[in-house]
């Protein structure tokens, strides 16, 4: 950030008499969309270091270290396989039950982790925010990125089991669509970022919402085809499932790797549209809160 480019806007009450070059102009919050993306880019090193801090700190504080990222989805999937697969006998579109649930869990755990953590942005960083300025969006962005590393480990786990099942029981068709996984991941990151910062800007007014987030994320999981396939949902209800952008993401992921899904291109487009809308709403409400948040704590 050698040179902070001037935010050139017309200042009505003060006639500009000097033609000096100002690097920064501090002014009241103006407009409903007041986020300087260029500035965010200049702070990319900070994002990098926050990601590193999150990873190192978490790694150092636990005995098992990164192993936790493997244990958690593994056990969740085992429980799902037993309860929903064996006991409730929910069909899995012909894919091996364990792989089916693992695919859902790997996607969902990334999303819900990002969501719950970004929702706490203002509350957990109140102290830093009160002492030093940097674009506040740096925090939720670094959360979404640092969780990517965890996702990669879990994705590795998934691939491991996928190969194991392919060798053991044969016919699983991984299609070329697997190559769009990074896009799915980006969409999930953006979606959780959008929802998270939307909630976080509301938690500055209502702290109760923090409790709603953890609980809400759990309910949201059951509203997403994680423990059941979309194909099991009657046509009449599908529309409601499509309003949930995670539906298309999870189903697309399964389609790519397990070849089983009821997802269509339309579903994907709706999902992308709703994601974009949520990200937009999130940024707008975040920008309303970030400049004066400090006054309320």
């Amino acid at each position, binding site marked *: 950030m*050698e040179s902070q480019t001037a935010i050139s806007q017309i200042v009505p009450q003060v006639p500009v008499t000097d033609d000096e070059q100002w*690097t920064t102009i501090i002014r009241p919050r103006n407009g409903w969309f007041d986020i300087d993306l260029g500035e965010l880019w200049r702070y990319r*090193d900070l994002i990098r270091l926050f990601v590193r*801090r999150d990873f190192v*700190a978490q790694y150092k504080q636990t005995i098992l270290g990164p192993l936790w990222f493997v244990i958690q989805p593994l056990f969740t999937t085992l429980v799902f396989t037993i309860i929903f697969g064996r006991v409730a006998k929910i069909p899995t579109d012909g894919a091996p039950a364990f792989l089916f649930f693992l695919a859902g869990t790997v996607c969902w755990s990334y999303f819900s982790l990002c969501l719950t953590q970004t929702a706490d942005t203002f509350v957990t960083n109140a102290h830093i925010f009160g002492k030093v300025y940097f674009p506040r969006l740096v925090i939720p962005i670094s959360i979404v990125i640092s969780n990517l590393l965890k996702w990669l480990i879990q994705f590795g786990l998934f691939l491991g089991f996928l190969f194991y099942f392919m060798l053991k029981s044969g016919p699983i068709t991984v299609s070329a669509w697997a190559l769009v996984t990074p896009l799915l991941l980006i969409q999930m990151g953006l979606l959780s970022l959008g929802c998270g910062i939307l909630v976080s800007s509301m938690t500055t007014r209502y702290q109760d919402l923090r409790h709603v987030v953890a609980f809400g994320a759990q309910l949201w999981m059951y509203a997403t085809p994680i423990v059941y396939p979309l194909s099991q949902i009657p046509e009449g209800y599908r529309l409601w499932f499509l309003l949930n952008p995670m539906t298309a993401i999870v189903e697309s992921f399964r389609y790519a790797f397990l070849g089983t899904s009821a997802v269509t291109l339309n579903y994907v487009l709706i999902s992308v549209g709703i994601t974009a809308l949520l990200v937009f709403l999130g940024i707008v409400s975040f920008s309303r809160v970030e400049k004066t948040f400090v006054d309320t704590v």
Partner: protein
Amino acid sequence: MSTVIKIENLWKEYRLGVIGYRSLHRDLQSRWARLRGRPDPNAPLGAEISRESGKIWALKDINLEVKEGEILGIIGRNGAGKSTLLKVLSRVTAPTRGQIKIKGRIASLLEVGTGFHPELTGRENVFLNGAIMGMTIPEIKAKFDEIVDFSGVEQFIDTPVKRYSSGMYVRLAFAVAAHLEPEILIVDEVLAVGDAEFQKKCLGKMDQVAKGGRTVLLVSHNMSAIETLCNKAVLMNNGAVALHSSDVRGVVANYRKNDTITALSKWVNPDGRLYSNQWFTPLAFYIGDAAGRDITMPVANDTDVWIHFEFTLHKTNEALSLGYAIYSEEGSMLYWSYYTDGAEDLWPKLEPGFCRLKSRLPSRLLNEGAYKLEFIGGIHFAEWLLAPETGVPIINLSVQGCLSDSPYWVMKRPGLIAPVMDWF
């Protein structure tokens, strides 16, 4: 010299009502009560008053220009708006009206070590903290050796900072801040941390920053630091700039004068229990006329001043001594005085229960200036109950003018006291 900071018509408003988190439950409760025409169960007591004064202006129409290379000291009493101004300048919070134009990179030290993580090593924290302050990774790399050298913790640079002593922690944190190399450095009371040796180092560093043509804004309650470091000073009062001058000593003197005038000349025990001991409980300690009525400060030197004491006596004790100690502005003690200083049969009689004592401070004894009086007391030869300079009740007295009736003596003379002696 070019202007590097230009503050134009800056206002900052705080809403008193929104301090702290609201809960959705309570808001709904309040709304429901209003809907039914019931009183709001969550309204603060005396809400009528607070609704009127629910907003305060922490900064009122500030206009200020800071030139390149200035070391500007910002002084003022607590609540004068100094910290708010620094917060707005460092972009921690946004102004309500007006604007600030800044030329160059600004770094603010409202705190050292912001964002330090205990699990990370010194090295990792230097990078993280530097980036939080706005440095890029290559910049930190270039400065790294210098930072470690300045901090003096090179041996432990790869140890997690949770194992650091608090001194080492502050040293490392300040070292990062000191090497930011911004064009404008904002410092808030950071000097208050660390030992004397380290403070000296920090002051030296700030001086060096300013000599390098960069600009420093410093908020401090340490007037001698302001006087030695700064070449310009701003006195803030009640959210506005009261004085802005390059006569730093003048501004500091003005602050001191104003401070003593408005400082309390009356102390009242807030809950009636403070400083209580088995012999007595002080209730009030104040300056007034002979009848105990308030007198306006500063006091002219040709009037008698009475020092009043009110207390509850629990038990009588022959050896109980109560009185006051008086200090000059610079802190030198002038004298002690006890009600038991005269001959024994002239001492005021005290009975258990509510008691009053008063003592005359003769006119034409003190010099022009500000004085501090302490309520002191003890059991003679046995123990202190209110020992001088241990945070006992304090009141202030300021004396100005009417030093003598002589046409030759109208100005303040050197010396702690200025009595008019008899000449024959």
